[in-house]
């Protein structure tokens, strides 16, 4: 009984952390989307100075642990004279990381659009950018919405790693409560439930939007 009541008494404190987790995830996804869109297009470019760096970026960020990336941004960059607070550092690291995954999603999305769409656009005199902006990306994003939703969910969970640099998101706040109460199991389990409610809600929202877009 005490196990449950300890979660309930600390719920407001934990929910503030959940709110931070959501904000952290949201801003990271935002950065990831912008970055991923450009890098995803870059991956498909025939121009080597665009294509090669894009590929290196994606491979490197997908091939190294997120925890290491967060550490580089927060502990490493200050040595180079770039000092970030924990919270912005976490957003930057998570944003850079999701940028790599979203780039691959965007690349697949662009490739899913028949070549004739791009050619029709160019034959009308649109520039490469205009063809991307008005014709290819709108159709691509519609197709990749489920994959982007997944990435959002993954990032919601991965953002818990920001606790190691002291960002007071959900995980970190849970650890605070545990040091105070010693209720390890119930607090971690409570946190797990809160994460689950968040990811489940997100997946429902994505599914709803998907259905709406399918009609349009």
């Amino acid at each position, binding site marked *: 009984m005490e196990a449950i009541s300890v979660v309930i008494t600390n719920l407001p404190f934990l929910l503030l952390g959940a709110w931070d987790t959501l904000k952290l995830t949201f801003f990271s996804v935002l950065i990831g989307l912008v970055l991923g869109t450009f890098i995803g297009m870059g991956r498909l470019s025939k121009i080597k100075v665009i294509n090669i760096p894009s590929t290196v970026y994606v491979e490197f960020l997908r091939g190294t642990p997120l925890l290491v990336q967060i550490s580089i941004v927060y502990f490493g960059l200050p040595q180079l004279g770039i000092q970030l607070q924990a919270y912005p550092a976490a957003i930057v690291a998570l944003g850079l990381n999701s940028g790599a995954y979203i780039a691959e999603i965007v690349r697949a999305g662009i490739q899913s659009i*028949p070549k*004739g*769409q791009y*050619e*029709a*656009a*160019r*034959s*009308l*005199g*649109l*520039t490469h950018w*205009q063809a991307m902006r*008005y*014709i290819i990306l*709108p*159709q691509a994003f*519609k197709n990749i919405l489920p994959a982007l939703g997944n990435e959002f969910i993954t990032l919601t969970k991965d953002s818990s790693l920001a606790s190691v640099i002291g960002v007071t998101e959900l995980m970190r706040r849970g650890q605070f409560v545990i040091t105070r109460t010693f209720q390890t199991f119930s607090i971690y389990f409570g946190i797990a439930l809160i994460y689950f409610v968040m990811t489940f809600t997100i997946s429902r929202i994505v599914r709803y939007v998907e259905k709406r877009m399918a009609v349009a």
Partner: protein
Amino acid sequence: MNKILEVKNLHKSFGRLEVLKGINLEIFQGETIVIIGPSGGGKSTFLRCINHLEDYQSGEIIFLGKKIDKHTSNLNEIRTKIGMVFQHFNLFPHMSVLENLILAPTKVKKISKEEAVQKAKVILERVGLIEKINAYPDNLSGGQKQRVAIARALMMEPVLMLFDEPTSALDPELVGEVLEVMKDLAKSGMTMIVVTHEMGFAKEVADRIIFIDKGVVAEEGSPEEIMKNPKNERTKSFLRHIL
């Protein structure tokens, strides 16, 4: 007469495969040229070189007196003057008919939306689809889609129109409505290059028929000459196949 396009000794390869092996062609204002030939002979590639959707290795393409190649700086502006109609329509499925039509005029030519809409109405009237102005491509028949695609190209007021087998993806009963629009266009003085095997169309509006086979112009002549007594054996057997 005004020379619209001149192609000199055009060579095009995909990797080691040489697809066009020295094509020559001249087209003057108001002419309609029909290109026929077996599949894989390079007809599509030839059209796609003209508006530079494909680069080429050697030769010259001169449109309105100016060379089109990979160094052409105002390629996008030139493309607005060369309308292209594809076998598979390539309408933009996420946009209504009206949006398909006004996109390029407003974004490329920067004319006002009001003006573009007015113009779209006139052109849709012309291709007989004004009642579909707010429809989406998925809700149109193949024939309607292709007429919208023609209308979309016309919105840019092209000087030259390229058609790449515009009716070969259509159910037979829908071919006629598209050919009608194309005939009207040809008779109104549009300069056109049409890849098609619709010999009735060719007979009625073509000034010349060109037979492209294995990357070269194997035969060229008036519809009468080509259809009644082709000189080339390959032309003969090809015509026997499609007629």
